[in-house]
């Protein structure tokens, strides 16, 4: 049986790219946390600038518990030489690197039968992912440095072990979605926007 391609991408890590001349570490939960903390355009979805890319590269070079939002002192000219005239190229390279890390399993979580009432708030998602990995490795730094894509899979299986009804999507469901994206992109876009709105409302407890 062929391996789920998303699972394969999460665990069979390719060498990380060089962006602005700097080799990045595998995109981890720690990197995700720091990017969220500084409201980086790479997590908020706004258009990133050169300084945003430099900060993101600095963050994605460090390991827990270090926090770095600037490249090493004295390397400004080195970075500028890579940036000059090739901002878009480095930007696309970073986006491809960050996207590869978000190899989350596609699942449906079925709520327990008979449960009603208002939904409650919860801790940030990156922390919940960290806790699932921490339960396995018992090392805070190793848990924070866990590649983000792998953490998503560990987390989902940890939920299943606790009794949450997790339903991994079938090839057929994915194929149907791919067909919809190809033949009716307008409806597919509406569905995607509805998902974003649904998650936002869930976070707000609506």
């Amino acid at each position, binding site marked *: 049986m062929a391996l789920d391609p998303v699972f394969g991408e999460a665990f069979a890590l390719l060498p990380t790219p060089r962006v602005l001349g700097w080799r990045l570490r595998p995109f981890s939960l720690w990197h995700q946390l720091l990017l969220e903390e500084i409201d980086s355009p790479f997590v908020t979805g706004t258009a990133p600038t050169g300084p945003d890319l430099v900060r993101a590269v600095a963050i994605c070079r460090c390991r827990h518990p270090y926090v770095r939002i600037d490249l090493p002192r004295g390397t400004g000219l080195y970075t500028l030489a890579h940036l000059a005239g090739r901002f878009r190229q480095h930007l696309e390279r970073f986006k491809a690197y960050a996207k590869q890390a978000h190899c989350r399993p*596609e*699942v*449906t*979580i*079925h*709520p327990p039968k008979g449960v009603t009432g208002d939904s409650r708030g919860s801790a940030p998602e990156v922390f919940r992912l960290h806790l699932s990995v921490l339960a396995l490795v018992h090392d805070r730094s190793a848990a924070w440095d866990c590649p983000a894509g792998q953490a998503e899979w560990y987390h989902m299986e940890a939920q299943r072990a606790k009794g949450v009804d997790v339903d991994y*999507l079938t090839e057929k*469901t*994915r194929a*149907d*979605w791919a*067909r*919809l994206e190809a*033949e*009716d992109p307008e*409806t597919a876009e*509406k*569905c*995607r926007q*509805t*998902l974003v*709105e*649904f*998650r936002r*409302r869930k976070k707000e407890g609506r």
Partner: protein
Amino acid sequence: MAYDNVIQYGATYEFGIKSADAPVIPGMNVTKIQVGYAPEVNVKSQNGEGKTDSRVVDKPEDFDIRVKVTGRITDLDAFASTAANFTWRSRYFVIDGKSEPRERGAYVEADCDAESNVLIEGPAS
């Protein structure tokens, strides 16, 4: 598969992209419909010995139809607030239940339940 001599119960119909046959429900892109048929009238009467000696059952074309419609949600508010009914295959369906939307990979999915009674062809005028 189309049957000539029997009625298929509990069939699931799946709709292709932009299928003209799919029921129209605001806020939902219908992907499948599970259908069940049952006679509305199904009466037995017994003789003096307690044995059934008379039976009245609906004609098959007059059976009640219960459906469970599943689809991708394209508008949360439209799905939640409106759509009390829809018409499908010349039968008028009254929606009597909706599920909570749930995440399913790249989209949100939900179900709604509906029933059609043969003599009800639309809202009371």
